[in-house]
């Protein structure tokens, strides 16, 4: 049963600490998205990659957030230093290569619930 795997599922950390969230996309998928979900803002796109290359990270606060894909099986989202306003659920999603089009559906992981105190 192919699925997107995110770790950790829950993270509580103190303000100022570094947080790293990991995502294993579905094997064979070449597009990876990072979303943040909050009560007020809903689902916001932070960044996305295609074939491991970052295509757009305009939704991400550059001073503290960074997203990388060290290899095709791992995507990471890092926050340093973390702040209470970063508390949210962070979702990773992956998508398969499009057939004659740029994209198809995205498959979401279960999310990482981050609480910064």
């Amino acid at each position, binding site marked *: 049963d192919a699925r997107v795997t995110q770790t950790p599922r829950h993270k509580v950390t103190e303000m100022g600490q570094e947080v790293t969230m990991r995502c294993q996309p579905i094997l064979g998928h070449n597009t990876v998205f990072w979303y943040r979900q909050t009560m007020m803002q809903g689902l916001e796109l932070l960044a996305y990659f295609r074939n491991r290359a970052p295509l757009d990270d305009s939704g991400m606060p550059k001073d503290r957030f960074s997203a990388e894909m060290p290899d095709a099986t791992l995507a990471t989202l890092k926050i340093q230093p973390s702040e209470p306003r970063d508390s949210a659920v962070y979702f990773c999603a992956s998508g398969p290569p499009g057939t004659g089009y740029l994209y198809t559906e995205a498959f979401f992981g*279960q999310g990482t619930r981050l609480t910064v105190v």
Partner: protein
Amino acid sequence: GESVGLHLPTLSVQEGDNSIINCAYSNSASDYFIWYKQESGKGPQFIIDIRSNMDKRQGQRVTVLLNKTVKHLSLQIAATQPGDSAVYFCAEAPEGDDKIIFGKGTRLHILP
């Protein structure tokens, strides 16, 4: 694991009735639209998609309608079941871009 907003519009539907969830999109350049379902504590799950060269697409118990003239998208769920209770998001992607941008969501509540 609550992951949805408290201020979402809510649609209450009697079990067995049909549900219609509406969505207005703002970008006239969007040419790919998707409906996602999100249950409490889970990530969004793909339901159905439609490209801008179509105005209707049917799946199993679901139909998506696209009206590009008024930039409106709807999701129809036939014979609504308790398992359909969730938050439903419409999402769009602009032409030439594979960013998928989500709308605010509608909570579907099934009445027994």
